[in-house]
C-alpha cells in the first residue's frame, strides 16, 4: 500500500543536514553569535592582558579558550529549533536510523565550528598574534582546528542530546562540556604553542595522536550511546 521504503542512515542524515543548513541560512543566529563572541573576546583579552601582541603558550591559550567558549554557544543552540514545534518528534516518528540524527547534528556543529575557527584564527592573527606564521604553520593550525573541532562536535552533540531534555539546559551544557573537553584542550593548546611562537615551530606527533585518540574514542561512545538519549 505505501510507496515508501525506510531511508538509509546516510540519506536520512543528509536530509537532516540539509534542513539544518537551510535553517541556519534563513536565520543565521548561531554562526553570527559565535563569530561576534570571538571578536569581542579578543578585544577583552587585549585590555585584560594589557598587551598589543602575544605569542607562544599565552597566544595558544587565548585562542583556544575563546574558541571553546564560542563552541559552547553552538552546542547550546544545537537542538533548540527541534524543540520549538516538535521537530525532534518528527524525526523520531520516521523509520530513519537514530544514528542519522547524531551524524547530521555533529556534522552541522562541525561545519559551524570550522567556519568560526578559521575566521577566528585569521582575526586573531591580525588583532593579537605577535609572530606571523608561515604558510606551512598555517596549514598545521588548520589541521589542528579540524581535529579539535571534530572532537568538540562529537562530544558537543552528545552533551546537547543530554541537555535538551533537562530543565537547566544552558547550565548543564557548560558544566558538562568544559571538563569533558579538557583532554582535548590540553592536546590542542600544547600542539599550537610552537606554531604561535617566534621561530619555525612545528607540530608534535604525540599531540596529534592524542587528538586523534580523543576523536575516535568519543566518536565511538557518541555513536553507541546516542540512541539512549533520543529514544523513549
Amino acid at each position: 500500500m505505501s510507496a515508501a521504503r525506510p531511508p538509509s542512515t546516510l540519506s536520512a542524515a543528509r536530509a537532516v543536514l540539509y534542513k539544518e543548513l537551510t535553517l541556519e541560512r534563513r536565520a543565521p543566529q548561531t554562526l553570527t553569535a559565535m563569530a561576534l563572541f570571538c571578536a569581542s573576546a579578543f578585544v577583552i583579552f587585549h585590555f585584560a592582558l594589557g598587551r598589543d601582541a602575544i605569542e607562544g603558550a599565552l597566544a595558544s591559550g587565548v585562542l583556544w579558550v575563546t574558541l571553546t567558549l564560542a563552541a559552547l554557544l553552538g552546542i547550546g543552540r544545537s537542538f533548540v529549533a527541534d524543540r520549538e514545534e516538535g521537530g525532534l518528534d518528527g524525526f523520531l516518528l520516521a523509520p530513519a536510523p537514530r544514528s542519522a540524527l547524531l551524524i547530521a547534528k555533529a556534522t552541522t556543529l562541525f561545519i559551524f565550528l570550522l567556519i568560526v575557527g578559521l575566521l577566528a584564527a585569521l582575526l586573531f592573527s591580525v588583532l593579537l598574534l605577535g609572530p606571523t606564521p608561515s604558510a606551512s604553520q598555517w596549514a598545521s593550525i588548520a589541521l589542528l582546528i579540524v581535529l579539535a573541532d571534530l572532537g568538540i562536535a562529537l562530544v558537543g552533540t552528545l552533551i546537547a542530546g543530554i541537555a535538551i531534555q533537562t530543565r537547566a539546559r544552558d547550565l548543564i551544557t557548560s558544566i558538562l562540556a568544559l571538563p569533558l573537553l579538557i583532554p582535548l584542550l590540553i592536546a590542542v593548546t600544547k600542539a599550537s604553542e610552537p606554531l604561535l611562537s617566534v621561530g619555525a615551530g612545528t607540530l608534535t606527533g604525540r599531540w596529534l595522536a592524542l587528538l586523534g585518540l580523543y576523536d575516535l574514542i568519543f566518536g565511538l561512545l557518541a555513536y553507541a550511546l546516542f540512541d539512549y538519549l533520543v529514544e523513549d
Partner: protein
Amino acid sequence: MANTEPAVVCSGLVRRYGERRALDGIDLTLGEGQTLVVFGPNGAGKTTLLRVLATLLRPSDGSASLLGSDLRKEGWKVRSKIGFLGHQSLCYGDLTARENLSYHAKLHGVEAPAARIEALLDQTKLSDRGDERVFGYSRGMLQRLAICRAVLHEPEVLLLDEPRSNLDPAAIEQVEPLIGAAAGRTRVIASHDPAGGLAEADLVLGLRSGAAILLEQAAEVTTDQIGELYR
C-alpha cells in the same frame, strides 16, 4: 479485505511518569480499518495513549502492538505505517511548507515525493502559499500542513489528536479524504467533541485519570454517557 487480524492491541498497558500513572492498565483491541475514538477530560491520558502507539513513548508495563508488531521491542518495524498528528505541527517555522514536507518525505523514504506533496497541498488549498515560511501561517493553515505531513507516506494507521481543532468547516471538508473514514485506514482519534466523535467511531474508549472507564462499540454508546466522562 477479510483480514480479521486486529490492527491495534493493548493489554494491561501502563505508562508512568515518575510515580504518576498516565495510563493505568488499558486493554483494547481494534480491528483493521476501524476507528477508535478516545474521550476524556484534559490530563486523562489521551495524548499519552497516542504517543505510546506512535512509538514516541515506551510502555512502562503491559504491552501494546500495532499491526502485529510489539511496540516495545520492534517499534521500528511499524514506524513507516503510522501517521501521527499531535498538538504540535512538527514543522520548522523557518522552512516553507514544501521544504517541511520534502524533509519528512526524505525521512520516510517516500517515492516520487514532489508529486505527492503537490497533490496534498492542492487538496488542502495550501499550494499558493507553499513557498512561504511556515511561521507566518495561521493556526488553521498549520493544522492543514500538519495533516499533510501525517499522511505524507500513506500510513496504514492514523493516530490523530484532535485533528479538527482550529479548522473551519471548509477546511474540515478538505481534509476529510485524508483523515476521514473514507480512506479506509485504521484510526485512533482523541476527541473533545462528543457528537462528532461518536458519529465516526466504531469503538469508544473513555479515559479518566489514565483508567479506561468506558469501552464499548459506538452503537451502544450515547452522547450523554460521554458527557458523563467530563463531569
